[in-house]
């Protein structure tokens, strides 16, 4: 028998160490130390109800366990085999205690559909993929469904594009299929460029066959025989695994001519991106594949009419494709049961930033931010205060505590001033300055703007300059006004999706963290201590013992001795010359006496 005790940060803070200690002690007292092993585990992600204790092999899940409960668990559960009911997890819906953790709602917070094979199969072995039902969706399409039925099924499933704006996938396929001609293309957008998002990479690395299969399904549905994957050159492993998958599929006759004896031909080629975020926009992506600068063009014409080589083309992103085979095999009706009213299925998020369980998660649409951050993500690192969560990368916005109970789907995120984007989710705590975060994203957009349209090329640069002024302590209230006007115009008048969404990080922080902007402008203060020009390093004369380590660490020779010797100290204390200080923080990290602080 095993006792698993959560050692995650949250539980650790609430005495899990003491609980383990108690278990060990009491089990030893009862002479059970050889039969029952106590282990500390990683975070269960259920910190809200921590500390957690799980008894194996019967999967009993105790929540909010206190050190003094240990004796009862040992006596009742371990010795007598009776579960301690009042410590069991209580289902909030029916107010019943759940004893087997497999039946807990908590475990259904995450549902892996797009990631269904990631971490299960060997991505370089097509047999394992077939053993898990790979290519059965394609087989079903080719033998039991007409192309129109495939389009209808995908449309009915309610699947929407996972790359950003959430256009209904089936409708997109249908639009392309209408322009039937000899040469059509299925394009997989694998140019995952959102900083902080890596789900597409993970899918390609973990389950490349699902992409190959889905592209062939799409080809069958719209009448295309050519598939192209536009993939970032920065993803060598994903490229390798896709190449292996394509070669294996060809060998098995699942790509190439006369697939599964049905007369359907389809093959896939890879095209490499070259480091331009804007190429995630489909028209820019197509231009890049054609060997041009990746500049977007105005839509219409849509790629469905005039895409790659001016031929009808259908562009979907990796995660969208990953959902397709399972929709075919399990049916649109099944898929529809998952998710929220207007957004069906699940979404993969790359959970990153100041959160304990950084990782790749997949949740049904409609899951709240709170569930993701506190139940799956294990809460904020170091027990600090949650401040904001950024979704949608440079096109998205920063949401705050008041949005924690928002059910995430395409529409609710847009309503909250952010967007789904490709699924980056970066959690921030009080050490992040929201003005600096807005600036960070704008720097990104400025660097990645293609330069074609004036609002994005010049407008974003001007916004960045205003933000520079503000973080340097030179901002005025008029600047904030100008920032809002510029943001509105860029949103309204820019050419492509990148430009139109680029002001979102600024607008959302202006909306949700107005006070912080005003503090920077009026009080010349950065509460997070991030904006260097607004900071002042000071040495507490009475704490300083005059060891001089800070002066040694200081690269700017800004620290010198004073004449003041504090009571009980032998050496004179140090002081910082604010005119020389470059605010690098080297002095603080070296001070063992907590004598230096940032004001």
């Amino acid at each position, binding site marked *: 028998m095993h006792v698993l005790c959560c050692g995650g940060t949250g539980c650790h803070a609430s005495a899990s160490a003491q609980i383990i200690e108690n278990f060990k002690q009491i089990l030893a007292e009862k002479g059970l130390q050889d039969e029952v092993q106590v282990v500390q585990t990683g975070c269960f992600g259920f910190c809200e109800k921590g500390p957690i204790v799980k008894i194996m092999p019967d999967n009993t899940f105790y929540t909010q366990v206190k050190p003094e409960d240990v004796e009862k668990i040992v006596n009742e559960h371990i010795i007598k085999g009776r579960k301690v009911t009042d410590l069991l997890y209580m289902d909030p819906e029916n107010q019943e205690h759940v004893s087997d953790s497999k039946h807990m709602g908590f475990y259904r917070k995450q549902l892996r559909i797009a990631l269904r094979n990631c971490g299960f199969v060997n991505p370089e072995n097509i047999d394992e993929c077939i053993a898990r039902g790979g290519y059965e969706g394609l087989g079903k399409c080719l033998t039991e469904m007409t192309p129109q039925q495939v389009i209808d099924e995908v449309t009915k499933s309610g699947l929407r594009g996972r790359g950003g704006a959430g256009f209904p996938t089936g409708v997109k396929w249908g639009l392309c299929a209408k322009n039937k001609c000899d040469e059509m293309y299925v394009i997989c957008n694998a140019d995952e460029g959102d900083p902080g998002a890596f789900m597409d990479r993970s899918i390609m690395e973990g389950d490349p066959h699902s992409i190959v299969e889905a592209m062939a399904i799409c080809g069958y549905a719209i009448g295309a025989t050519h598939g192209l994957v536009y993939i970032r050159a920065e993803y060598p492993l994903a490229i390798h695994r896709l190449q292996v998958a394509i070669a294996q599929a060809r060998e098995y006759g699942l790509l190439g001519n006369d697939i599964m004896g049905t007369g359907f031909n389809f093959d896939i080629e890879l095209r490499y991106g070259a480091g331009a975020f804007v190429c995630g926009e489909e028209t820019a992506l197509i231009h890049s594949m054609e060997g041009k600068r990746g500049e977007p063009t105005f839509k219409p014409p849509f790629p469905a009419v005039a895409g790659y080589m001016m031929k009808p083309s259908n562009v979907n992103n990796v995660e969208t494709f990953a959902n397709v085979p399972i929709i075919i095999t399990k049916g649109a009706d099944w898929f529809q049961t998952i998710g929220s009213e207007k957004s069906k299925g699940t979404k993969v998020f790359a959970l990153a930033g100041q959160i304990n369980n950084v990782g790749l998660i997949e949740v049904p649409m409609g899951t709240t931010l709170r569930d993701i951050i506190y139940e799956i993500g294990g809460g904020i690192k170091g027990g600090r205060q949650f401040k904001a969560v950024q979704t949608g990368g440079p096109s998205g916005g920063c949401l705050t505590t008041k949005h924690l109970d928002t059910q995430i789907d395409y529409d609710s995120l847009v309503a909250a001033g952010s967007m789904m984007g490709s699924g980056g989710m970066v959690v921030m705590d009080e050490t992040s300055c929201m003005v600096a975060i807005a600036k960070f994203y704008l720097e990104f957009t400025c660097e990645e703007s*293609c*330069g*074609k349209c004036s*609002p994005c090329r010049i407008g974003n640069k001007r916004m960045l300059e205003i933000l520079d002024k503000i973080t340097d302590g030179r901002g005025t209230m008029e600047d904030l006004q*100008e920032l809002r006007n510029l943001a509105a115009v860029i949103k*309204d*008048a820019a*050419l492509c999706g990148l430009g139109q969404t680029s002001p979102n990080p600024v607008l959302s922080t202006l909306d949700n963290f107005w006070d912080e902007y005003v503090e920077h402008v009026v009080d010349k203060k950065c509460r997070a201590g991030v904006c260097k020009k607004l900071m002042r390093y000071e040495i507490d004369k009475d704490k300083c013992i005059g060891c001089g380590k800070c002066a040694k660490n200081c690269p700017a020779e800004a620290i010198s001795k004073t004449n003041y010797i504090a009571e009980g100290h032998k050496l004179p204390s140090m002081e910082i010359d604010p005119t020389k200080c470059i605010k690098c923080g080297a002095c603080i990290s070296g001070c063992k006496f907590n004598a230096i602080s940032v004001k």
Partner: protein
Amino acid sequence: MINVTIDNKHIQVEPGTTILKAARQAGIDIPTLCYFELAGMKFENKPGGCRVCVVEVVKDFNGKPRRNLAPACATDCVEGMEVLTHSPRVINARKTVVELILSDHPNDCLQCEKSGDCELQTLAQKLGIREIPFKGAQSTYRKDQTLSVMRDVDKCVMCRRCETMCNTVQSVGALSAINRGFNAVVAPAFEMNLAESSCVNCGQCVQVCPVGALTLVDNISDVMKAINDPTKTVVVQTAPAVRVALGEEFGMEPGTIVTGKMAAALRQLGFDYVFDTDWSADLTIMEEGTELLGRVKKFLNGEKTALPLFTSCCPGWVSFYEKNFPDLLDYPSTAKSPQQMFGAVAKNYFAQKIGVKREDMVVVSIMPCLAKKSECARDEFKVNGNPDVDFSLTTREFAHMIKQCNIDLNNLPEEDFDSPLGQSTGAAVIFGATGGVMEAAVRTAYEVYTGKPLANIDLEVVRGLEGMKEATVDFNGLPVHVGVCYGLANARKMMEEVRNGNPRGFHFIEVMACPGGCIGGAGQPYHHGNSDIIRKRMEATYREDAGKPIRKSHENPDIIAIYKEYYGEPCGHLSHEQLHTHYFDKSQHVEACGE
């Protein structure tokens, strides 16, 4: 037809009409900046990049308002669409966009060559911009110039018109957008000097640039200095296309013919001899026509010869084939262009005749062209370093000179050109329009070859603004197959065809680099994309031709006289020496070197 409502005006438009064009139909002028069209010449630049023409679509195809503002130039009308072109939201966006563009612009309007002709300036004025609320970094690039084109890309607004011209229309490929974001700009590869690139100095980038980023190299002061130098005899020649466009600079209707006023103005400016390039155009026909007949006869005799013969009057075109078709250098006519023939005649025959030393004569040309500035500087057109043509001015520079010298062109009495290099025929006049050289050559070649008068001298099939034309002319039983094109991309297609064995069997092909021929030249008054202006200049050209008493080059009495007196016969020994040239391989080569 589909129904749309723009600013509450209901109109019906053809499917595929953009909001911009529909609005213009309804009498609503939506401002544009990057958008540029030469209707009828298949040139359209609509990157949808400047965002000046944005409008609010309050009702889209789905009955709902469109989320973002739509670029009028690139958005097609759909049934039932409702559009506002001046709602507060539109005006604010449009003004902000122009303010943003101005915030990255030097704003040195008073000194800018483009002042008064600048589309950005006009726009700022129209929108009533009084201050630029954004202060920030401005892009700076080094200035660069060829002998014809000046680049000051600090002023570039990234409309991409020049890039489209240089690549799509001319297939020269000297210019491309480079870098990205705020640093994006149009430039030659590696930001090298334009002069070292594949640029052929056609200058069409200058003709379409909405601002002062691309301008011409101004030679006015050089010419003024020569005029005011008492030791110099200054001879001027004016190209055929100048007389049908110059008037525009003085408020006259496009297509007004100002030949007589132009001659008078030149005299007032102080030129010692006012001659006409039309005269040397007649001479060109004599040389080129003879060369053509020579090659055709050789061909008919089964001898090896280079057919088709390409015209070589257009220096942009000459530069283009030297850089791109080094294997076909035998095909173009060796006859010099009219400008250079004039220069050669002036500094040899005429200088001798009036007893002026070559070094003391300055030949100035007034041209519709920027490439002529580079042509006259070519080494092979110099004798001991002294060029046959010293300075080439454009129509625009000429207009500036007239204004500078307080000459009232509108009220100037008409005067004639001087003799002996002043008299010309209708065949020379039409050199200015696409197909003109061909028509003029046919008028002469036909009669010389057949010995019979040409029944109908108006060769209508090669006239008009079509980019590529072909026709067969019956030379008394010999079908002569001719082709005419303008725009170097069209010329490239023709050259590639010839390289592939000339399957259409052309004997003679006329090539002009600029849209519509010289009348659409880069040195002409800015047409701002109004191809009607070019059409009117063309009509004026043919009007002038029709009104001439003599319309065939070989009937020009001064031409007949000079052969009798000086050159002997076309393509004779002396004319080969003075009136013909040769071409050089100027293509790029790879050379292997050590590691």
